[in-house]
């Protein structure tokens, strides 16, 4: 603005002002914004502002073949794409009455847990960066890259694998893959103590995250919170355990919980989940060689596949919480309707708006990252 065009506005004397937090802000996850009303640096009111990422996935899916949508769905959540493919496939398989071979189910669980590890490492990095600790970010991203290497070897794609399809998976695991995955798990396991020293026990993080964005179990249930955020309030609910899919009922793992319900507790739950995912993956490495058989069941010509009419609602536990796909078919070659329920549609909107009130401006980013909110799941 030219100085001659500047016109001073007379406000009544007050410390209150409004601030646009995002969409271009280093402290916000993805393209997302908050309209924040502040008194000094204390938040009085926060309103979520979405739409910067809207690509109309649900509408696009209605115009594509059942099989084509596999290439579309992982793009809904970039850091954790595997659950998207698998959840969509589960919903379509239920409609089509397909029985997924056991070997394919194990390979799917392997992807889901690898994706969970990668997503959690990314989240820690993001959260650490909001407190100025960029080393954790660099470490997290570097270690995530090693997991992406394994994804690349298995599927050909580092981030979006487009590897699952209704009925199973595209390819079997390469030779020697499980031993390389085992080496990676040993490495990640050995890194956990380093992460503890660098981040989880670091007082810069602990003192800021403790008692920040506190949510009671009652509030969490009222606001529709799921995933690690719910478990951080003491409720051991996990879709993998309580509404099991694939072969999770054959695997041995714990559901880590914390009681405090603050930003620290949410991160500690994710830290404990890393160990559980490593534990699950080690069981898969031990079991998978003994499970023989096909990797997918026969499906009709995918280019002219008419999925029987009906509707189905599939749920999986993504790294962020409960992910749901409601799919409706009228017996045509394309879905009639697909509705995606992303866990962040609660966490990034209603929960964040509530938790931000009373916090300080510099803590909004921390609260958002502690909730692991993923804006593309809101926009879709």
């Amino acid at each position, binding site marked *: 603005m030219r100085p001659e065009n500047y016109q001073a506005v007379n406000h009544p004397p007050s410390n209150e002002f409004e601030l646009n937090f995002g969409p271009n802000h280093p402290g916000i996850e993805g393209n997302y914004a908050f309209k924040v009303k502040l008194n000094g640096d204390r938040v009085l009111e926060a309103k*979520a*502002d*979405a*739409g910067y990422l*809207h690509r*109309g996935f*649900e*509408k*696009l899916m209605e*115009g594509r073949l059942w099989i084509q949508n596999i290439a579309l769905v992982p793009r809904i959540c970039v850091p954790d794409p595997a659950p998207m493919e698998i959840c969509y496939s589960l919903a379509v398989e239920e409609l089509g009455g397909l029985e997924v071979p056991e070997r394919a189910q194990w390979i799917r669980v392997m992807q889901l847990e690898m994706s969970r590890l990668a997503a959690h490492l990314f989240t820690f990095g993001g959260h650490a960066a909001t407190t100025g600790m960029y080393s954790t970010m660099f470490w997290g991203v570097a270690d995530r890259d090693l997991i992406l290497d394994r994804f690349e070897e298995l599927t050909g794609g580092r981030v979006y694998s487009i590897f699952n399809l209704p009925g199973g998976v595209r390819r079997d695991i390469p030779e020697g893959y499980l031993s390389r995955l085992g080496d990676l798990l040993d490495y990640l396991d050995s890194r956990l103590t380093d992460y503890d020293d660098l981040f989880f026990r670091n007082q810069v993080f602990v003192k800021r995250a403790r008692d920040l964005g506190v949510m009671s179990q009652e509030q969490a*249930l*009222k*606001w*529709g919170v*799921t995933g690690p955020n719910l478990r951080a309030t003491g*409720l051991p*609910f996990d879709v993998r355990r*309580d*509404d099991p899919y694939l072969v999770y009922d054959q695997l041995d793992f714990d559901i880590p919980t914390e009681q405090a319900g603050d930003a620290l507790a949410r991160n500690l739950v994710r830290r404990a989940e890393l160990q559980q995912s490593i534990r699950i993956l080690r069981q898969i490495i031990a079991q998978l060689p003994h499970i023989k058989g096909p990797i997918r069941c026969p499906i009709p010509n995918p280019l002219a596949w008419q999925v029987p009419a009906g*509707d189905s*609602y599939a*749920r999986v536990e993504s790294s962020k919480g*409960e992910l*749901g796909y*409601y799919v*409706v078919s009228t017996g045509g070659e394309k879905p*009639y*309707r697909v*509705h995606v*329920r992303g866990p962040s*549609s*609660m966490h990034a*909107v*209603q929960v964040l708006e509530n938790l931000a009130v009373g916090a300080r401006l510099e803590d909004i980013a921390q609260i958002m990252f502690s909730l692991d909110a993923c804006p593309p799941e*809101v*926009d879709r």
Partner: protein
Amino acid sequence: MTKALDTLLDSLLGELENIRVQRVTQRRIRVDVDADALPTLLELLQGRAGYIHLSAISCVDWVDELQFELVYHVWSYETRTLISAHTRIPREPGVYISIYDLYQPAAFFERDIHEMFGVYFEGSPNMEKFILTEWNGPPPMRKEFDSEQFVHQHFEFENYQPDWLRELEARGGGITKRPEDIR
């Protein structure tokens, strides 16, 4: 657990008229109910059967039947079952009742459905635009809205004909079908 749940549901749902219950799988139950009875159904399920988690509200546009179908997916942490309650409302005027008093997560889903399908929920805390802030067209998830047609009406394809492409086409190669030929 299954038998106890069946008994509980039978006793609850016996209080409502015109209701059809179908057990799809061990942990999935489908309920079809009239639009005016749905809030009562959800209140009963939440208050007396522990279905306290609203997983999602999905909307389906049945344009040929001039109806919207609303599907409320509710989960019970106790019985570990998911009930999908289906109801249909007339497409015009497309007005229904909010269940925000029962389930707070409904605010997001109702706002989303209002924006994408144009269904107005009376009593919902915020029906303002959220995702499509600068959109003035019809609700885009309605079946009559054709995204491709909209693109062709409002935008033009760039006339992309560089020299190398002309040469290639002169030799019989290049882009043999133009977008308008494919349509």
